[in-house]
């Protein structure tokens, strides 16, 4: 069976992504930045942001839209990070303890979020957004008046004398912190990383073929792509583009594992339930699925994953703004996944990763492009904020628009 190659429908369905690619190219050409530098920045940003974007997929599949309440997962991670620094568990151990601590805290928060969102079905996104703001108030209460006052903190630098509450910045680069705990484990130049990845992919494809879990054609294509990318890298020009890139292998492996988890989960019974609930709650309920419980689980998993994502982010940055690091998490991750071609009803790993790449590419080049085009870097800064909000607004408008169109069509057909 041959699919019809309808150029217009492809254009229409991927308008945001295509527009973004164009925007990135324009900004890149005006930014005056070299490609190796942009690549270096991009890989850094990808390694610290991809995980949290992937955390958004489950709630979208379960029909709850973009989970803007992942900011609360980030807050859970920051609570854990604060205590790990207080206890002075540095390095990988500290990261592990923080990740372990994040699970119960984020799961508990996720439970509360899920229950609340179950009371406002159809309004989850605005609800999640406002819930994020609300939780930020509670977070401030916790960090300003409880930690450091009612519960004393002893570690140096956590509390500044003369001001109330926890200090504005928590530094992870001392021996008490876990800066680069994950990134620093195994860092290789881009070429080595590419060979390792391609080799692993080829081996997996062959094994899958032998176990008859993959069709012959698919396996050959996979191995072929891996080999081709290795060959492409042999061209000196291509290699020079990536000359500055250092790949934190473990971090990307964790991201890869999350992708596998997302795919694997979709093939389980629970995954089917997510999908059923996402498609139609009434039908799902009629077929015996506990809709509320399914949605609750999706939000809880998403919140825990977001917490881990924030930990990966802060271990890469080496410090975080106590009262601000979580605020924009939901906005940037949400915009990124939409840029990749996801809608508020459909999303997959590829869209999340592609969106992450495009969105952060724009983030890197927009300020300097703004400076070169308009003579002011602030314009580029505001432009990327505008793009973040604008992309979400556009996605919402398009989704709502399609819904209305569908209703009209159904009405016209029934008449």
């Amino acid at each position, binding site marked *: 069976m041959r699919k019809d190659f309808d150029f217009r429908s492809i254009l229409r369905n991927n308008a945001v992504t295509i527009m973004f690619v164009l925007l990135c190219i324009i900004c890149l050409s005006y930014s005056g930045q070299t490609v190796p530098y942009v690549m270096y920045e991009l890989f850094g940003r990808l390694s610290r942001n991809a995980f949290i974007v992937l955390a958004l997929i489950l709630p979208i599949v379960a029909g709850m839209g973009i989970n803007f309440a992942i900011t609360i997962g980030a807050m859970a991670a920051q609570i854990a990070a604060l205590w790990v620094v207080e206890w002075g568990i540095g390095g990988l151990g500290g990261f592990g303890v923080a990740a372990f601590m994040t699970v119960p805290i984020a799961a508990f928060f996720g439970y509360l979020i899920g229950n609340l969102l179950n009371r406002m*079905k159809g309004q989850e996104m605005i609800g999640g957004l*406002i819930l994020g703001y609300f939780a930020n*108030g509670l977070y401030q209460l916790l960090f300003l008046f409880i930690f450091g006052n009612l519960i004393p903190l002893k570690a140096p630098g956590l509390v500044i004398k003369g001001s*109330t509450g926890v200090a504005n910045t928590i530094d992870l680069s001392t021996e008490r912190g876990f800066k680069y705990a994950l990134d620093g484990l195994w860092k290789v130049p881009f070429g080595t990383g590419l060979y390792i990845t391609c080799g692993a992919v080829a081996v997996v494809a062959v094994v899958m073929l032998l176990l008859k879990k993959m069709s012959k054609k698919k396996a050959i294509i996979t191995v072929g792509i891996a080999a081709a990318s290795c060959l492409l890298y042999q061209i000196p020009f291509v290699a020079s583009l990536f000359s500055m890139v250092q790949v934190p292998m473990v971090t990307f492996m964790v991201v890869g594992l999350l992708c596998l988890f997302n795919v694997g989960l979709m093939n389980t019974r629970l995954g089917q339930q997510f999908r059923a609930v996402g498609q139609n709650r009434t039908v799902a309920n009629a077929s015996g699925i506990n809709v509320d419980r399914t949605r609750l689980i999706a939000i809880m998993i998403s919140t825990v994953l977001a917490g881990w994502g924030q930990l990966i982010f802060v271990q890469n940055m080496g410090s975080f703004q106590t009262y601000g690091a979580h605020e924009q998490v939901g906005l940037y991750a949400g915009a990124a996944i939409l840029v990749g071609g996801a809608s508020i009803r459909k999303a997959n790993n590829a869209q999340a990763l592609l969106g992450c790449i495009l969105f952060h590419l724009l983030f890197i080049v927009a300020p300097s492009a703004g400076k070169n085009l*308009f003579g*002011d870097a602030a314009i580029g800064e505001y432009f990327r904020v505008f793009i973040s909000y604008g992309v979400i607004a556009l996605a919402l408008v398009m989704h709502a628009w399609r819904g209305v169109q569908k209703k009209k069509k159904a009405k016209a057909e029934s008449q």
Partner: protein
Amino acid sequence: MTNNKWRRLLAIVLCAAAVLLLVTGIIELPRRTGRAGQDVLDDARIQALLSVTGESVVESYVAIAKKEAQERVRAGGGSMNDIREAVEKAEQETREKYTGESTDLSQIDTASLRAATNAYMNALDEYGSLETAARAQYIEEHYAEAQAALEEKHRAMLEAGQEIPENDAVVVDMSGFVPTPEMLAAEAAADNAYLAVGDAISLIYPVLDKDSVMTLKDSVRGMLYQSDDDFSSQFDRYVEQGRAKRTFSAYLLRHADDLIYTAIALLVAAALLLYSEWLISKLGIPRVIIGLFFIILCFMTLLYDLSLPTLLSNTVVRMGMNAVMVLAIVPGIQCGISLNLGLPIGLVAGLLGGLMTIEFGIPGWGGFLFAILVGVVIAAVCGYLYAQLLNRLKGEEMSVTTYVGFSVVSLMCIAWLVLPFTSLKLRWPLGTGLRNTIGLDSGNFRHILNDWGAFNIGSFYVPTGLLLFMALCCFLVWLFSRSKTGVAMQAVGNNPRFAEAAGLNVNKMRVIGTMLSTVLGAVGILVYSQSYGFMQLYTAPRQMGFIAASAILIGGASTSRCKISHVLIGTFLFQGVLTLGMPVANVLVPGSTISETLRILISNGIILYALTKSGGASRA
């Protein structure tokens, strides 16, 4: 049943306690100005006086002991080292011996000291009232001068490219103030009176000679008398200085007013307890909580001796400055687009109008009306386009409006950087773009509504013009909702299908409601700015839609139903909690930002609550 019984019992207990406190308070309060209050203050004052002078007594003893020790060792032929050691030892011993001994009033004859101190207090009082009057007169004479100087300073700051601080008030420079002859005479009389006090102290502590008594003069004076003293502040200061035991009766007298406040609070609590079910069913839990919170804050300001009338007056001002923005939510709800969180569209239109007024330099009322006119026109156009968008996505308005509003605000951030305004009041002289906050002054429309026909009742400032304007806007919206179009619009909002069947043009009505909401937003931000004295650009308007929406929800509206009364009640309660919350929070946790945290919790909490009530709790 038992639950009800317990509640009734508790209410009765509360009432009984309240009556007890009330009676005690009412009996005690008048005694402050009478004989008893005078005695309590006298005792505390003498105690404090002796304690302050007692510290220098210890110093005198220490000096004497050191001298003696030095001579003793030197006479014994000790080395320099021995002398030093002996002196240190003597100092330590003497200090231990005398410090911490609280003075027992009953063992000292303080009659002469009392008489001298009272005379001294009277002299100080006379001097103080003369000084206050003279200073007030000086300030009155020089106020206009200081105001002109401040505006001159602001102009210079603008040209130098600095931001005008938001809390810059007119301060009269007192360096040119010269004491009047009457003041000098009163001061000499007070100094004379102090000599008598000094003599009396010397009688009690013979070790203090005349010179050391004179060196104590300033600290004694500062402790005894401060301007604007009342019973409570004097008592608190003496007790703190004197380290004296607080006797129960003195304590009762000191807190008589607090007893009365607590009693009233308990009565209110009892009434609320009795009618709690009725209140909750009538108002809903969040409103009861916020209302209670407001009442508690009122009592706490009284207990902490903060000025409640001033704070309530600030609340009224802030209610007036926010009310029109909150009112802008009303047509949105009525026409069925739910909470118009895209209000920032109207706000930036209003800001544009204000900027143009300053750019063209139109002064006074003309400028304000011009700003409103320009704002309304821009808002009407934007509102029309915005309404066209919303008409294409019925049922999904809330999340779309939020993000459209956010997008517009961030788009305008770029616009503020590139718009071709030229006035130095608006632009940074170096660098590009408009300033973050634009200070209004008397040449523009700063406080133009607030000060129109404003008057004071005690410390309660009534911003007549602002309140009248608020009332006018509310009345117009109410009038509109009674008109034929308004009724049709509400019908569309309540039940679009029915309205369509009845032959109403649903889309047209929604356009009217959305435009009206946006236009009111533009007017609202101008009213807000003229009262605040500053126009805030860039990201400032982003959260204002949420604040307006939460205010109307606090007032009792839901996402599909609202009245004008909800606007007024909600704005008053919300702003009241914020205004009263800040000083109370600063007493509890000094220098904290808890008031801002409070705003975040209240405004977002109420929106969340409204969302849970807007349906969708069904299982499927």
